[in-house]
């Protein structure tokens, strides 16, 4: 094998650079960082269980969207037989009063940018500052 030293050396340098994000995070002590969304104090149960909401809230919201807009039925019956009005601003944000402290924390962490808020209103207290035309 020719140029053994160069090849192994090169591979080692490559591995160092490729694994930079992992060991940099470990070295800076942020490896165990978790987003910490602020949960509502007024309620202790969302429309479904917390685990289900964590994993499937996007699917649930799409189901809500289709049911309310396409089928004209805006009543959701949860798996434990409670009824809710399908309304992002009126129902979700009634308990989750701060979009910035709830929705945005995880979305920013995972680098997702859902476009719900392009149209759906965030009640004024938490609305981002408007650009004057």
């Amino acid at each position, binding site marked *: 094998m020719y140029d053994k030293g160069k090849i192994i050396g090169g591979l080692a340098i490559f591995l160092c650079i490729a694994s930079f994000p992992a060991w940099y995070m470990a070295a800076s002590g942020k490896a165990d960082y978790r987003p910490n969304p602020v949960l509502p104090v007024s309620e202790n149960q969302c429309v479904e269980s917390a685990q289900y909401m964590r994993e499937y809230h996007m699917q649930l919201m799409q189901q809500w969207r289709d049911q309310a807009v396409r089928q004209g039925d805006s009543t959701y019956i949860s798996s434990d037989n409670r009824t809710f009005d399908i309304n992002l601003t009126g129902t979700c944000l009634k308990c989750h009063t701060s979009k910035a402290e709830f929705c945005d924390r995880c979305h920013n962490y995972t680098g997702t940018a859902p476009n719900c808020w*392009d*149209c759906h209103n965030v009640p*004024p207290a938490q609305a981002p500052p408007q650009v004057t035309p």
Partner: protein
Amino acid sequence: MSDMKFDRRSFLKLTALGLLALAARPAIDLISKPSIARALSGPATGKRLAMAVDLKACTAADGCVACIAACHRVHNVPDIGNRKEDIRWLSEVGYNQAFPDQDNQLVAEPLKDRRVLILCNHCDNPPCVKVCPTQATWRRDDGIVMMDYHRCIGCRYCMAACPYGSRSFNWRDPRPYVKTIDNGYPTRTRGVAEKCNFCEERLAAGLQPACVEACSSGALTFGDLKPGTGVHKLISSQFNLRRKAELGTLPQVYYLP
């Protein structure tokens, strides 16, 4: 049969026949479309929401815009202040603009000066629905021609198809142009078409459309177009006009001149 040849000529013949057979299915589908059947048979049975606009009672000519203001307020319709980018759900125009086909050589004096409220006609045979490539707009069973903003890709075919100019397009983010945002209805975003929805969200809550509620002169009547209802009595008891009814769109906003 060893001398039977599949020659060039019969190959071409069979190919042409095969292609013809492929074309038959779409042609049959086209003439058996339910929308065409519905258009030919008139309004479907069951619930059929409609509006009657009494032009004699309407005070738009005196500068009243209560209905327009109410509609645009509850639906967060922006005021962009630029005619090319105007968003209008409900607006008022002159008689000859609203009814170009009624613009006779001599129009009765009272009619000539009347202002006419114009809005989406919620057609029974809506051309906007036919052309929408994503089914973002569709006709509900109760007659409302709905818009699903989630699905709109902003191609504006619907705007080209609508003979009434009832649709508007968001050329820019409308939010900065909405004076006070009403949280009861979402705003729209750039690149989405929009129009009057007969206050579908208010009907679901058991309310009348915002324009009907705001009208103090009783010019607007809204309801199910079945015998016995207020709107049916009004329309069936006197001469009425519909905008460009000759196009066969079966508009459901009736004007009582």
